[in-house]
C-alpha cells in the first residue's frame, strides 16, 4: 500500500518502549539538529500559559498514545487573573504561582526553553540550533507589547512598568505604589483595543483606588484611556467607582510619549501629564513567534483561525489559541484561553485519529474585583453556526457583591486546576 519509512516502522513496532525511553529528556538546551526524534505521533505546544498548558494536558488525557512536548521558558506559572489584587496587597504573588508538575503527571514533556521559530511547511519547531519535529503544533504565545508605539517607552522599561504579564513587574509596581507619597499622582494608561483582558485595566483602577483610599487618602489616580469609553462592564465599573472619588477618568486620551526622567506622559492631543508613579499598559499584538511563523493576518497583529479546529487559516498544521487569536466574538480572557485549549486539544486528537473534529463552542466568565472583598462578572455563552462561533448571550451580574467574590474564588480554584492539573494548583 505505502512504503514504510524507518520512522514509521519504529513507531509501529515500538511505540510503548519509545514512550518510556524518552521520558527523562526535559531541559537539555543547545542541541543542534533534530532534538529527541519522535517515535510516535507528536504534538508540540508553544507556550505554557492558560491556553497552552490546558491544551497540552487535554491532548494527553484524551489520547495518551500521543506524545506532547510543551515549550515554556518559565519554570512557574503565574496567574494574570487575580494579579491586580497583588497591587492592592489583598493577595501575594506567591498565592498565584504554581508549578507544572500536574502536567508532568499526565505525561506532558516540559522543556523550559523558548521556541525560536516555527516552520509550518517543514512541521518543525526550532529551539536555537536544534529542532523538534511535530505532527501538529499548538501555538499559544499570548501577547507581546508594541513598545515603539509610545515614544521613550522602549528605553525606559525598568522604570515604566506594564505589570500586564503577572510576575516580577507586578511585585515591583506594588512596591512603587506603596512608596508613593500621600498626595501623589498615580497615572494608569489603558491601551487601544484589542488587548489582553478587556476588563483588566478597570479592575486594576478599582484595586489601586481602593489601596489609595485606604492608605494614602490625599493621593489621586488619573486614568488616561485610549478608548472612547470603558471597554468592558462600563456601567458596572462606573457604579463601583462611586466609592472612589480619588479616580479621575479621561476617555479618548491615548498616550504617545513617556519621559521617565521628567515623570511625564504626553497624549495624542499634546497634553502633558505629570506623575509620581506610572503604570503604562502598552498596545499589544500576538506573541512574536506567531509573527515569525507567518500566522498573523493582514493586520500583522493577530492570528485568524478556524472556529472549530483552531487551525491557522494560513498554515493548517498549526493551531493557534488564546489571546493571540482574532475573528471570534470572544474576549482575550483566561477562561476563553482555557476553553480554546480544551476544544483545540480535542480537535487535534480527532484529526490525528482520522476523525472529523466536533463543533464545540467556547464559554467565557470574567470576574473583576472592585474592592478587597467584592467582585462582579460578565458571562458569555456561544454556539457554532455554519462553522463560526456566534454569541448566544452576554450577561452581567446585577452589581458587585461579596457573593460574587466567593464565586470568583471558586472559579479561580477550579480553573487553575483545569489548566495545570492537581499538581499545579495547590
Amino acid at each position, binding site marked *: *500500500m*505505502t512504503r514504510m519509512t524507518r520512522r*514509521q516502522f519504529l*513507531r*509501529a*513496532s*515500538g*511505540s*510503548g518502549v519509545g*514512550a518510556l525511553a524518552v521520558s527523562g529528556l526535559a531541559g537539555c538546551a543547545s542541541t543542534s539538529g533534530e532534538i529527541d526524534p519522535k517515535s*510516535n*505521533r507528536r504534538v508540540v505546544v508553544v507556550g505554557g500559559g492558560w491556553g497552552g498548558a490546558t491544551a497540552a494536558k487535554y491532548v494527553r*488525557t*484524551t*489520547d*495518551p*498514545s500521543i506524545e506532547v512536548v510543551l515549550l515554556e521558558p518559565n519554570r512557574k506559572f503565574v496567574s494574570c487573573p487575580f494579579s491586580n489584587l497583588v497591587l492592592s496587597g489583598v493577595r501575594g504573588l506567591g498565592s498565584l504561582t504554581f508549578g507544572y508538575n500536574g502536567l508532568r*503527571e*499526565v*505525561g506532558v514533556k516540559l522543556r523550559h526553553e523558548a521556541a525560536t521559530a516555527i516552520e509550518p511547511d517543514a512541521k518543525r519547531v526550532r529551539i536555537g540550533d536544534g529542532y523538534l519535529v511535530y505532527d501538529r503544533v499548538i501555538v499559544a504565545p499570548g501577547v507581546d507589547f508594541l513598545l515603539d508605539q509610545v515614544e521613550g517607552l522602549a528605553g525606559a522599561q525598568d522604570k515604566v512598568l506594564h505589570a500586564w504579564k503577572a510576575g516580577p513587574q507586578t511585585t515591583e509596581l506594588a512596591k512603587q505604589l506603596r512608596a508613593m507619597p500621600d498626595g501623589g499622582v498615580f497615572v494608569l494608561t489603558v491601551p487601544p483595543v484589542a488587548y489582553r483582558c478587556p476588563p483588566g485595566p478597570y479592575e486594576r483602577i478599582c484595586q489601586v483606588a481602593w489601596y489609595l483610599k485606604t492608605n494614602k487618602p490625599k493621593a489621586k489616580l488619573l486614568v488616561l484611556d485610549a478608548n472612547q469609553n470603558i471597554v468592558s462592564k462600563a456601567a458596572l465599573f462606573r457604579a463601583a467607582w462611586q466609592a472612589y472619588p480619588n479616580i479621575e477618568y479621561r476617555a479618548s486620551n491615548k498616550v504617545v510619549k513617556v519621559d521617565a526622567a521628567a515623570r511625564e506622559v504626553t497624549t495624542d492631543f499634546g497634553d502633558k501629564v505629570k506623575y509620581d508613579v506610572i503604570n503604562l499598559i502598552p498596545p499589544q499584538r500576538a506573541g512574536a513567534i506567531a509573527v515569525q511563523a507567518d500566522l498573523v493576518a493582514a493586520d500583522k497583529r493577530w492570528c485568524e483561525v478556524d472556529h472549530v479546529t483552531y487551525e491557522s487559516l494560513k498554515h493548517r498544521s498549526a493551531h493557534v489559541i488564546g489571546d493571540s487569536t482574532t475573528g471570534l466574538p470572544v474576549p482575550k480572557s483566561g*477562561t476563553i484561553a*482555557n*476553553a480554546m485549549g*480544551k*476544544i483545540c486539544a*480535542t480537535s487535534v*486528537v*480527532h484529526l*490525528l*485519529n*482520522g*476523525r472529523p473534529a*466536533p463543533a*464545540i*463552542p467556547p*464559554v467565557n*466568565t470574567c470576574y473583576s474585583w472592585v474592592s478587597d472583598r467584592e467582585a462582579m*462578572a460578565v*458571562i*458569555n*455563552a*456561544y*454556539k457554532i453556526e455554519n462553522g463560526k462561533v456566534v454569541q*448566544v*448571550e*452576554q*450577561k*452581567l*451580574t*446585577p452589581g458587585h457583591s461579596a*457573593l460574587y467574590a*466567593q*464565586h470568583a*474564588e*471558586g*472559579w479561580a480554584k*477550579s*480553573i487553575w*486546576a*483545569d489548566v495545570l492539573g492537581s499538581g499545579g494548583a495547590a
Partner: protein
Amino acid sequence: MSRLLLGVVLLAGVVMLGAPAAFLACGAGVAPAAAGPLDQPGYVKAMTCSACHGAAGNSRSDAVPILAGLSPVYFKKAIEDYATGKRVSAEMEPFAKQVKLLGVDEVAAYFAAQRRDVTPVKADRGAVERGRVASAQCAACHGAEGQGGQGDPSKLGPAIAGQPAAYIKNQLLLFKADKRSPGDEPLTKMKAILKAIPDETLGDVAAYYSSLR
C-alpha cells in the same frame, strides 16, 4: 485525583498495548480512534464546564457545586430553570442556554455517569454536629445520608452529601427567600420548613450535609 490518574495510567497501558497492531493494520500512519474520554457519551459537550465545575464535574471549590453523579432528571430541571430565569444566576443563565443548544440529554448523561468525589473543603466540626441535629426534617426527601431520592422517580430531592458547604448554604438561603424556582409545588414544603430556621442554622445544616460521605 489519584483515581483519575490511575485511570489515565491504565488507559495509557491499554492504548500502548493495542497500538502496534493497530498501526500496522492501518499502514498509512493514521491510527484508529483511541478509546477513552472521546468515546464517553457527552464528554465533548460537557468539556468546557470543567473550568468552574472541575474535572468530570467534581468541583474542588466551596461555592461551585459538584455535578458528578447528579441524576439526569435533576440536572435537566436545573438547566431548564436557569435558562428560564426561575433559578436566578447571572453565571448559569447563559451557560444553561448554551447547554440546551448543545444537547442537554447528553451532558446530563455524562455527569450522571461520573463518580462523585466529595468536596475536599473541610466543614467546621461544631457546625456539622449542630447541623446533624437541625437536619432531621430533611431526610424525608434527601435521604437519611443525603443520598437523595434517586431510587424514586417521583422525588426530585437531589443527592447533596459531599457537596461543598458554601454552595448548599447559598441554595438554602435562596429557597428560604423563595428566590429559587418560585411557584414550584414540590418545593413549597421545603421552603415553609426553611422559613422557620435561622440563617446560621442553615449554615450548620449545609456543613452537616457537606460532611456526609
